[in-house]
């Protein structure tokens, strides 16, 4: 029996002495506010205070706390109270998974240093990783807490008010994620996974393993009752929930073991025989290798293309042409919450509660795999500790569902960090090449682009990436002639799927770095060059879509004074450089239906009940959609009660992807709220200009005279609403033709970022001094949340540029796979530009993905400006920058074509054609 003080109260717990304290706290004492991100001391999410000092609970033996005092996020101290308020006020918690660890680490600091400086905060909190915020808001929150200033922005929550998130109180108290709720007695599910990228396997005699105490059930591919093939895009369904031989990537699930709770779960000696097969490691090998999937010769999943005008002729007659390549790596989403969830039966309905970005898709895929009618599957999204695209695909949902369906018992499953990293999707590695030309005045004449994307073992979002890249690769610039094609090629690598930007960040790295070289050739300032080519209203995109509400010119113009200052400051300073890059991004599905439905009602008690099915993975849709709804309804936000998401309670608001929620679900919310308002006004016989107010159950409509409706006297419907409206919005798009021409998106967002760096040429290291980010959001529904998106996206862009490279078998943890820490993200100045889009709610455009796109190319452009080094492969690790710098002393070799430069990149292997 271990006795200690937990949050001020004496507790006694029976636990193995060397059990991880995190396990003891969560499993035996119910303190699930202590989050587990890695079990290795790499992320700090499980930080607790042991006698006031921060330690990782995952590295602390339970017995060691005997007689001592432990504080978790469930506790309350003077410092924690202040920090909670400050984190909430500063938007320092987005998804909330790192928040408990951040709060406790900061509490340790505040007890040692009452009023810490920014630098002291950075250094003290450096042991906790955050993947959402970019850290700046956390630094601000802790500094403010030290100064005693924890007040939040004022505002009633109208559109445009920077109010703290509505679900923020839960975030700073230790929210309940996938691993944090499970039914009593739930079986514990573990997966057996392939240790090889490609291997045949045979499962041995299971009799002995099955008879082992504590083993409740074992399942293999043969046990899948429905269709053992899924994909986020159904026509491409190719990925098994549990693979039959052969396994096609390292980490693929080949069997499930359900253990009774409370027993040691040891799947390591599961009887399985592996016969490693030769893997196709790269697209180059795969294009000539045996097809992974029938009907996909050359392992070509899909090719996306855009052909407008005659790029070859345009380039041949251009005054200046540059040619170059860019190679990118697998990038891991590295959300701090590994996948987790639980399942149980309610009558004949299978209920799955898990982290997700797409409950509706989870439901469809899980039902198909398990052979169930859709109505018998209910998905309840837990709080989701970051997603960034990877939690769009199902992961453990069908596994949980299978166990519960077959055993009739509740179950739960939590991925280890390694499982999360090996088995879920990645950003596509890209090998890109091509040419861009301009005339003597620096106006773009044409572009040729060719990209090969490693889509891994299964389809996932490969088709989307292959289609999005050619559409976007021109950047937000008028490009009269363009030929662009992108191919997604299967390999025995991890499944490449969606990651913030769907391939567009990779394409922008290629395009924006070439733009800098082209601007230099034309002898034009790099920002001016971009301004000269920036798309304007009424001009056509690469798909021939005539654009409106184009904000790129405004974004670049907003950077101008900063650009002038930064160039002047960098001039003559060794190693200093300034870079700029733009982005644009179409919001929602590419030329496909993409509806959202929102229901809003009034309860007899006078609550505005918003059935909000858009999953909030930290980006803020719970708040933004509610602000839009309240504004359209004409009632204060404070009366809004959120319901869902839950496939049994909320209509489908689609997936949280493609920067679509604020725009698409926002439009649905606006329409639903307007319909409800119209119904209220009709009842009161009031005009459009009437004002509404709620006082308890009394709804008052003032339009000259006042009409009162006592809501408690009206009959409620099945959902408990006395007045209700529901609306669906689907963006008006048109399909792309054979040449990729059409109107694939109804709304685009735009942005441009400027990065100031200092490069240490002797070591090839880069220090970021400041990032200035101008983003056209159409209308900032909530400026604080918008800034949070910008800062978080920039942090991921920094990672992509400078450190992130997922190598299967080698960087499957958070100490070999590096994501930015405190200190890697410089001060960020966000400039919110508002060019209202006629299609967006109150003019709003999407933002979530845009923000990541310009960062990496702007960093590379700043490095080139500082040193002349042209980086053609990311991440630009120190040794790669050094290599590029050393190349500068080599003689330049002409590669032939008129006006073509950069022999190093032209000679780089890895790109075909």
């Amino acid at each position, binding site marked *: 029996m271990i006795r200690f003080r937990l949050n001020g109260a004496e507790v006694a717990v029976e636990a193995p002495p060397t059990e991880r304290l995190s396990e003891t706290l969560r499993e035996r004492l119910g303190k699930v506010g202590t989050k587990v991100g890695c079990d290795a001391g*790499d992320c700090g999410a499980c930080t607790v205070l042991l006698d006031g*000092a*921060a330690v*990782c609970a995952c*590295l602390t*033996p339970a017995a060691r706390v005997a007689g001592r005092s432990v504080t978790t996020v469930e506790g309350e101290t003077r410092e924690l109270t202040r920090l909670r308020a400050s984190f909430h006020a500063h938007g320092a918690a987005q998804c909330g998974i790192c928040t408990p660890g951040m709060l406790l680490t900061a509490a340790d*600091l505040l007890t040692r240093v009452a009023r810490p400086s920014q630098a002291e905060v950075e250094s003290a*909190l450096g042991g906790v990783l955050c993947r959402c915020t970019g850290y700046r808001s956390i630094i601000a929150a802790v500094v403010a807490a030290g100064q005693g200033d924890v007040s939040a922005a004022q505002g009633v929550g109208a559109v445009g008010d920077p109010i703290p998130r509505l679900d923020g109180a839960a975030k700073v108290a230790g929210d309940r994620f996938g691993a944090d709720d499970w039914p009593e007695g739930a079986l514990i599910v573990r997966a057996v996974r392939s240790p090889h990228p490609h291997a045949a396997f045979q499962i041995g005699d299971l009799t002995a393993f099955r008879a082992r105490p504590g083993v409740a059930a074992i399942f293999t591919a043969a046990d899948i009752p429905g269709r053992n093939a899924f994909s986020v895009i159904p026509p491409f369904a190719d990925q098994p929930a549990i693979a039959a031989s052969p396994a096609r990537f390292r980490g693929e699930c080949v069997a499930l073991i359900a253990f009774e709770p409370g027993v040691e779960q040891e799947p390591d000696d599961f009887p399985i025989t592996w016969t490693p097969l030769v893997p196709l490691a790269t697209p180059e090998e795969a294009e000539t290798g045996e097809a992974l999937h029938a009907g996909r010769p050359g392992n070509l999943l899909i090719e996306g293309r855009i052909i407008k005008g005659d790029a070859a002729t345009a380039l041949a007659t251009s005054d200046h042409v540059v040619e170059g390549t860019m190679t990118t790596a697998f990038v891991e989403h590295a959300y701090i919450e590994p996948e987790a969830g639980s399942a149980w039966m309610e009558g004949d309905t299978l209920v799955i509660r898990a982290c997700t970005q797409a409950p509706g898709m989870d439901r469809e895929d899980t039902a198909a795999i398990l052979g169930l009618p859709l109505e018998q599957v209910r998905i309840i999204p837990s709080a989701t500790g970051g997603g960034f695209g990877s939690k769009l695909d199902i992961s453990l949902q069908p596994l949980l569902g299978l166990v519960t369906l077959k055993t009739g018992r509740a179950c739960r499953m939590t991925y280890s960090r390694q499982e999360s990293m090996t088995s879920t999707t990645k950003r596509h590695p890209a090998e890109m090449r091509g040419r861009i030309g301009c005339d003597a005045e620096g106006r773009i004449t044409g572009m040729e682009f060719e990209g090969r994307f490693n889509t891994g073992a299964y389809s996932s979002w490969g088709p989307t990436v292959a289609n999005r890249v050619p559409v976007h690769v021109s950047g937000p610039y008028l490009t009269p002639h363009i030929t662009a094609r992108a191919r997604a090629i299967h390999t025995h690598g991890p499944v490449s799927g969606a990651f913030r930007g769907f391939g567009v960040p990779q394409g922008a790295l290629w395009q924006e770095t070439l733009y800098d070289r082209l601007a230099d050739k034309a002898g034009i300032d790099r920002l001016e060059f971009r301004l000269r080519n920036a798309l304007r209203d009424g001009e056509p995109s690469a798909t021939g879509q005539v654009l409106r509400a184009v904000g790129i010119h405004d974004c670049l113009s907003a950077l101008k004074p900063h650009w002038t200052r930064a160039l002047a400051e960098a001039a003559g300073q060794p190693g200093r450089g300034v870079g700029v890059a733009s982005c644009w991004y179409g919001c929602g599905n590419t030329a496909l239906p993409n509806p959202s439905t929102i229901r809003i009602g009034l309860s007899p008690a006078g609550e505005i009940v918003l059935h909000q099915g858009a999953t909030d993975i930290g980006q803020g849709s719970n708040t933004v959609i509610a602000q839009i709804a309240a504004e359209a309804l004409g009632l204060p936000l404070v009366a809004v009660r959120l319901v869902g998401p839950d496939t049994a309670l909320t209509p489908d608001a689609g997936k949280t992807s493609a920067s679509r929620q604020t725009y698409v679900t926002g439009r649905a919310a606006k329409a639903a709220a307007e319909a409800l308002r119209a119904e209220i006004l009709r009842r009161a016989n009031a005009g459009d200009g009437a004002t509404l107010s709620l006082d308890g159950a009394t709804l008052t409509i003032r339009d000259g005279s006042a009409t009162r409706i006592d809501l408690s006297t009206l009959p409620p419907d099945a959902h408990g609403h006395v007045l209700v409206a529901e609306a669906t919005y689907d963006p008006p798009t048109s399909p792309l033709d054979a040449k990729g021409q059409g109107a694939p998106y109804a709304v685009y967002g735009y942005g441009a970022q400027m990065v100031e760096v200092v490069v240490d040429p002797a070591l090839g290291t880069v220090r970021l001094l400041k990032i200035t980010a101008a983003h056209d959001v159409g209308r900032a529904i909530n400026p604080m949340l918008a800034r949070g998106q910008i800062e978080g996206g920039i942090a991921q862009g920094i990672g992509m540029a400078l450190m992130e490279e997922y190598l299967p078998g080698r960087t499957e943890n958070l*100490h070999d796979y590096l994501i930015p820490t405190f200190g890697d993200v410089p001060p960020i100045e966000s400039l919110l530009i508002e060019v209202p889009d006629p299609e967006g709610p109150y003019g709003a455009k999407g933002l979530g993905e845009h923000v990541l796109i310009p960062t990496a190319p702007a960093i590379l452009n700043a490095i080139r400006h500082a040193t002349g080094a042209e980086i053609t492969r990311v991440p630009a690790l120190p*040794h790669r920058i050094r290599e590029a710098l050393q190349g500068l002393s080599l003689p330049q070799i002409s590669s032939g074509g008129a006006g073509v430069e950069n022999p190093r990149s032209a000679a780089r292997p890895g790109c075909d054609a």
Partner: protein
Amino acid sequence: MDYARPETLTEALRLMAGGGARALGGGTDLYPGAAARLGGPVVDLAGIGELRGITRNGGQRIGGLTSWTAIAAAVLPDACRALQQAARQVGGRQVQNAGTIGGNLCNASPAADGVPPLLALDAQVELVSASGTRRLELADFLLGPRRTALRPDEVLAAVLIPETALRGRSSFVKLGARSHLVISIAMVAARVEIDRGRVVGAAVAVGACSPVAVRLPAVEAALTGAPVAQAVGRIRDTDVTGPLSPIDDVRATAKYRREAAAELVRRAVAEALG
């Protein structure tokens, strides 16, 4: 016995005597490889006060169980500055609060942050078992990646820095691809003694560029006797890279590590010279 938490070293050594148990220090290296609990048998050293703390008595004695936070916070001679700088860069605050100097050495990672500063301090380790105490030069204790001269029945009781090495001023420079929580690509500790404008003693060690961190005798020889203003200029690349045998890994190439090590040696020496 699956787990024991002795309160005296004698008791711990008795429990270790069979050789089948493993000693648990801060846990920051043992737990990452473990399941829900750490497999036993485990002798938890945390309760043994005599293994903790820093004392000076004819040299500096740092108990094996002394945490990095305690080392960083201690008032130590300038010669130990590199060690204190390293102490602030071992993982994050959480790991520094739990992790111990003895554990860092016993774990024997080629990239252990504690090793170059201690090599530059001519450190010895005190290894005790039920059958006695022995002292080894740190360089003789570390045999290779994850390999040490520690016998299964022994505990690393203390790190000993001789009085002769507590002279001068030292500096630690760590290179990685991010700010915090980073396994070094390369790192250098340099300690220099200056007398009347000349370097009269130098100790320079490089980590993460060979299976075990190493001292650089040729660099030290070149520095010794040099006027302070000229000292850094006497560091030759080949004197740095000669003893190194870096590898290509996910963090950097071997070629880069050689170049970076030479640069870091110059910077560490320059900083130590003040």
